[in-house]
């Protein structure tokens, strides 16, 4: 099982991105970051499977503004 769950932007189903790589079924591309939602079939990208996506996520995730901001 993957360490993180991916949420489908179409139906909201949370699933293991690694176990649902769409490229396994694609006749052309291998190791692309596409994943296929097992609930609705929507194919989208998992930024966690891309170098640029991971780098950007880490960079943006470290922003202090996102960790603070206690509400009310």
């Amino acid at each position, binding site marked *: 099982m993957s360490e993180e769950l991916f*949420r489908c*932007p179409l139906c909201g189903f949370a699933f293991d991105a690694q176990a649902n790589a769409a490229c396994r079924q694609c*006749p052309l*591309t291998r190791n692309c970051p*596409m994943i296929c939602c097992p609930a609705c079939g929507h194919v989208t990208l998992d*930024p966690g499977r891309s170098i640029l*996506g991971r780098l950007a996520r880490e960079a943006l995730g470290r922003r202090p503004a*996102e960790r603070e901001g206690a*509400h009310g």
Partner: protein
Amino acid sequence: MDCCGNNSKLSANGRNVIALIGHHNVGKSVLFNRLTGRRVTVSNYPGTTVEVTRGPITGLPEVLLLDTPGILTFPSHTEDERATSQALLEEPLRAILQVGDAKNLSRTLLLTLQLAELGLPQVLALNMADEAEARGVRIDPAQLQAELAIRVVPTIAVRGQGLAELEGALASPAAPAVQLKYPRAVEAALCELEGSLPGAPLKARGLGLLWLCGDPQVEQWLGARLSPGDCAALAARRRELETELGEAPAAAIQRTQLAWAEQMAARALKAQGRQASGPASWLGRLAVHRLWGIPALLGILAALYVFVGLFGAGTLVGWLEGNLFGELLNPWITQWVSRISPLPLLTDLLVGQYGLWTMGITYAFALILPIVSTFFLAFGVLEDSGYLPRLAVMSNRVFTRLGLNGKAVLPMVLGLGCVTMATLTTRILESRRERLLATLLLALAVPCSAQLGVVLGMLAGISLSATLIWALVVLGVLLSVGWLAARLVPGDRTPLVIELPPLRMPALSNLIPKTLARVEWYLKEVVPLFLLGTALLFTLDKLGVLPWLIRVGEPLVTGWLGLPAQASTALLIGFLRRDFGAAGLFAMQSAGMLSPAQVLVAMITLTLFIPCIAVSTMIARERGWRTSVAMAALVFPLAFGVGGLFNRLLLLVGWAP
């Protein structure tokens, strides 16, 4: 409650697990990932957690956070809910972190009460506080804290707001001070039960309530710890209670709990939410409105046109192709290669008319990359904002009239991302008829994101009216063929059932990684194909086959479509990838070799053109080679037929942008 006011310090005992519990779609997984440092891609529609996941809390590394499946209410019914009950009974729980939807306070507080009666220390995160506020719901957390004696923290998990305060609350969670009075018969049964239940990690009263309500997981847990005789005695007491109450104990218990939750919510609400009154919900309703949904869609397309067409294809391409590649890189590299290359053939292969650099790399990076990057960004906004399901609803209305209703709409919408993958998505359709129709329409008239970006970019270089004409023609063909095919291939229809999440403002922290991931995927897939296609053209040119092909295709390309003979090259490489072909036409347009009318005809033809190699292979795999060949045999003449007829029409009316 006897444990009122007792704080559970983290170092107190060996219990080091905090269970994250909440209803479906309240942002549990987002909060889990925020608190544990594991980030998921957050789109607009919060989903359900289907597996129990755990991880250390970043700010409290000695504590494990357990992400349980979403629960509707206690007693548990579904497998997911039973997993939550199981976690409560079997995990070494230090506390419960309940995630609640601030918009639905009474529903949230019902679960708060059910959890509070289990006697474990508890913290309540009132999530989606921004959406609640947008709907006019003003909650007084201090009031709730005072009444429940637990920490109540408003959060906006997707933005990470309120997390510092939440981590602080989790460091020393307090046990709730709730003592609800049930009907006398229930209270009497509870008193008896408390003495006969085995030791449990939960308070005996709470366990007794779950048992009286018939929670199957609790029954199983007790069955494993009590003798059959004791179990039978408990069951007999429950039946007796049912007789006394004249209804199932669960009904009486839940009614009491619900009344308490509603009263508590009324006291804590400073302002009652106006039902669907925020701008997001107003826009959400507008987007699927039978009448206003259409201008809303047109507005979105217009924004897409300005951003992708004018900014991406105009400003960015102008700078990259004209300035960087055209004036700086290409002259310098051509000069340098010519100087060091020992063979003229090698020079030609690298920097000639069909050179790997001057054509393959330049097309991929200077022409296509800026366009698809802006398109991917815009598509990400649509995806994360929750517009895609609404687009499916809007399309469904049109498709229903054509006999193409139902789930078949989804692959059409998703094809705008990647047609190859959308073809794969047709598997979700239940009937062979729907799968066949959806595949045909995808192959014929649904441009993928890259192609759509290039088409928008090229047409934006002409005028808005050119873009609208293109859209109307392609949509007209799509609907006409769909209508005809639906009548030729009769069968049952499957209705579209899709939940509509609220519209949300996409978060940059999700949008940027997603867009960059798409760009990376595109470059990995496209650059090798562009280089392969260029090498193929180069070889055909050197062998003298390309000039022959151009000559052979001249009656069709020049005579029928009214395009320059060189457009044959672009159409030829369009077989490899339609966006590669479009890039060739883009280069011709930039060089002033195509008039606006010719660009429009070329774009219509190429959009309806035979699908790329990847799509064709996928169709063959999913529907069989015969279907794939039959579709190609239909699509190819149709694309040229419509393109040629449109050329005649433009000539006839003397269209000018």
